[in-house]
């Protein structure tokens, strides 16, 4: 494969890709009197159009992606991204319209947001929802802010948020950003919230419990109603991290479990593209008690017209510019409408079927710390392979040689050497079998030829990269005098 340099390395004076039309008004030389200006943007690239095209096209081929391969990143829900939704989002009334155009001119767009709100409330069983947060993490922060505003309004501000030790890192991080201190709740032998530990730890100073359901092991918190009761009995609120909603759509609803506030990830459950790391959206659904505190603006219907309501005296305020990641909302709405009720139920049924098929097929080859039934994802570990000096990272890197993107490894913290696998419902049996087959081969390779794993990947665009060096001697941008690192060796 052609190794593509940095654009700055193929840049040269006199090369030009895009041309603007000539300036069609007389030049005024006085405009910038007394203003500090620059003569040029130093180091900015100068390349021709075909160089831009080849640069990005070649680089694209160095990426694994859902369109090419199986991508079982646990908790990320890497399902197929429908192409028709991309087409719809590009309609000019959606993509070319300025957000300050008066509401009367964009009734179609306001209706899209309102409809998406209504359907997501139906799916989650919550009373109202804000589509403003730009991603799950921002949704968590907004959720925490809503809880804080509600409790302060009650005259009962509290200082602590409880979070299970299996939680995704954004949970404690978001709680902290809201000014709360975090206390950990232990998981029991089944990998679920330890009810006794929760009952013991729950107090009048706990504002909320943040719970993921199903949790990061893929296990449904069967005692969720009891969990909510314990928290409510001491005046706290329950926040549910809805990243794993793919297991629940059409089966059950967080609103029916006693959850007070939750977030969704449109770029997970609702198929909007992950884009290499966003944009996504993290809508926050709430029960009525939190409605006064929702971020502004709210979309309301006045007579027959949809308007933006900023007159919300108890609102937590604005959480971002404008109204949300609108085009992401368009794609999610298109997805919901293309699946319909029965299609949405089928999503969770098949997501759970696919995951359990993988679990059953690999339970002899890889250690499953928790034997509890799982839904849409399962977490193996490298325990058996450790015997041969192999860690989860070596298994992950070897999977690359088999043309599969590795599973999630960085959490849950309660499983050492985790391999969190979430196939999603859009995978075919053929691709699942290819993955299972690869994992079995790797398990055998771990025993018979561990060096092969340690040196993996062998067939990718680059071999295993030195992450330690990257952190120790950070090079975070190109500079003209920077020599290629390879010359240093």
């Amino acid at each position, binding site marked *: 494969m052609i190794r593509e340099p940095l654009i700055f390395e193929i840049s040269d004076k006199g090369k*030009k890709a895009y041309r603007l039309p000539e*300036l069609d*008004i007389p030049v005024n030389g006085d*405009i*910038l009197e007394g203003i*500090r200006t620059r003569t040029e943007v130093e180091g*900015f690239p100068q390349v021709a*159009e075909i160089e*831009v095209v080849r640069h990005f*096209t070649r680089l*694209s*081929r*160095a*990426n694994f*992606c859902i369109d090419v391969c199986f991508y079982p990143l646990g908790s990320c829900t890497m399902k197929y991204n429908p192409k028709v939704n991309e087409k719809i989002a590009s309609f000019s*009334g959606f993509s*070319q319209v300025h*957000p*300050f155009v008066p509401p009367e001119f964009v*009734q*179609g*767009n306001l209706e899209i947001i309102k409809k998406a709100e209504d*359907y997501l409330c*139906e799916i989650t069983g919550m009373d109202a929802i804000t589509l403003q947060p730009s991603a799950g*993490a*921002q949704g968590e*922060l907004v959720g925490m802010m809503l809880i804080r505003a509600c409790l302060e309004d009650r005259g009962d501000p509290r200082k602590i948020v409880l979070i299970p030790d299996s939680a995704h890192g954004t949970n404690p991080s978001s709680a902290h*950003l809201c000014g709360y201190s975090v206390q950990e709740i232990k998981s029991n032998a089944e990998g679920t919230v330890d009810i006794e530990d929760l009952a013991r730890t729950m107090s009048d100073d706990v504002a909320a419990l943040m719970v993921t359901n199903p949790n990061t092991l893929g*296990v449904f918190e069967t005692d969720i109603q009891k969990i909510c009761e314990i928290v409510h009995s001491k005046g706290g609120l329950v926040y549910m991290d809805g990243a794993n909603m793919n297991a629940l759509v059409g089966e059950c*609803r967080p609103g029916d479990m006693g959850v007070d506030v939750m977030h969704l990830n449109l770029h997970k459950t609702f198929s909007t*593209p*992950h*884009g290499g*790391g*966003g944009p996504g959206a993290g809508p926050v659904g709430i029960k009525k008690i939190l409605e006064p505190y929702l971020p502004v603006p709210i979309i309301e219907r006045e007579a027959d017209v949809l308007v933006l309501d900023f007159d919300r005296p108890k609102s937590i305020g604005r959480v971002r*510019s*404008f109204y949300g*990641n609108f085009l*992401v909302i368009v794609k999610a709405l*298109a997805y919901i*409408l*293309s699946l319909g*009720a029965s299609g949405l139920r089928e999503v969770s*049924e098949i997501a759970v*079927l696919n995951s359990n098929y993988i679990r*059953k097929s690999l339970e002899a080859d890889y250690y499953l710390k928790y034997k509890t039934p799982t839904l849409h994802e399962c977490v193996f570990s490298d325990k058996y392979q450790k015997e041969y000096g192999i860690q989860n990272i070596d298994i992950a890197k070897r999977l690359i040689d088999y043309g599969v993107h*590795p599973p999630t490894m*960085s959490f849950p913290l309660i499983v050492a050497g985790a391999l969190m696998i979430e196939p999603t419902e859009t*995978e075919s049996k053929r691709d699942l079998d290819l993955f299972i087959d690869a994992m079995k081969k790797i398990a055998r390779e771990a025993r018979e030829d561990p060096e092969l794993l340690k040196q993996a990947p062998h067939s990718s*665009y680059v*071999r295993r*990269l030195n*992450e330690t060096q*990257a952190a120790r001697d*950070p*090079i*975070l*941008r190109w500079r003209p005098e920077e020599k290629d*690192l390879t010359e240093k*060796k």
Partner: protein
Amino acid sequence: MSYISLSDKDKKDMLKRIGLSSLKELFLTIPEDIKLKEDLNIPDAKTESELISYFESLNAKNKGTDLLSFLGGGAYPHIIPTLVDYLSSRGEFISPYTPYQAEVSQGTLQIIFEFQTLICQLTGMDIANASLYEGASGAAEAVLMAHRLKRKPKVLLAGSVHPQYIEVINTYTKNLGIRVEGVRYSDDGSVDIDELDEKMDDQTSAVIAQSPNFFGVIEDLERISGIAHKKDGLSVVVISEPVSLGILEAPGSLGADIVTGEAQSFGIPLSYGGPYLGFMACNEEFIRQFPGRISGETVDVEGQRGYVLTLSTREQHIRRERATSNICTNQALCALRATVFLETLGKEGIRELAFQNIQKANYALEECGKIDGVQKKFLGAVFNEFVLEFDKPADVVNRSLLEKGIIGGLDLGLFFPKFKNCALFCVTETHTKDKIDLLVKGMEEAMQGR
């Protein structure tokens, strides 16, 4: 539609291997009393053509999408070269996720590295991150960062910063005990330097100012930074229109410690407000408190150069509640669009783009200022936005302009009651002389009550 890829036989075989006889048996851990007994109340599934028709009819409820618009105020109409849509729509860019497994994400990681470099070059700073959500929350993250670094209880926030950004900064800081004190703007539309100097003290973590500011006026960043530094505070510069950096001096050369803002102007369509593209850059010494993902250079086992997400101990997936930010998913695909945009425009293109913006806007300002009943509200030099004051309410003028097929400037009465006769007009390279002249003619007629 359905995106399920299993045949009936597949389902049977798979259930058999698991040892179950029906899909229902997969959900036994969900208590019966919360299981849904009926399907959700959602319309029946639409086929692809039905879906497209449905959204076409929603699109049709949007009127005037082809009107001539002079709206700005944090979202800017710019040309988007064809290559931006074309290249960013590749499945290899759209469908992967965060590049945690670097070896199979070199496309994304190298592009982020280039994006970081371009932002550094534009802002004159040492390091940039892979993106934040958008301008307003980015400004809030910058304030939080400055507070972590200096640990002083208050920040000074120029009143000429975008009102939405001010609101979001307040939302983010109020739960963390950070006091935000405003500094008013003076009659020329820029921040009141004397008041800033007075209010600056050793209890201030940072001074936050925007340039060009919300009124389109170019601030004196060097003086502002100087005031911040005199009492050991940080200079945080916010930029909602980074095209200005093609011609205005880089904030890094004017004393900025942190630069943050909105890069929607770089190839992101107006999108009715999102997704946009937050960016942040800072000086090297602040790296440990810098939020967001960062792509860094390294080598592989064969000595081949490659890129990885690095310095992750700052981030939530490692540091959890002690992370510099909770950000996980950011705006990677938008950053990719911006990278294509900037590399396609290139060194000369970005300068020419900035030059045309400032010339056209000032031409429009000049011509509008000649109309009876219209005057330039602020004296400060402007980049591509300006405020006009009318002798009648701005919404009356705008209504008249609408009848002529023109969406006028942003009615500032929506933000500041005292400015209800004022509107913020944005003029970019997308406005030909003819279009500007149409505005001028339309405004003239509007002022005459026609």
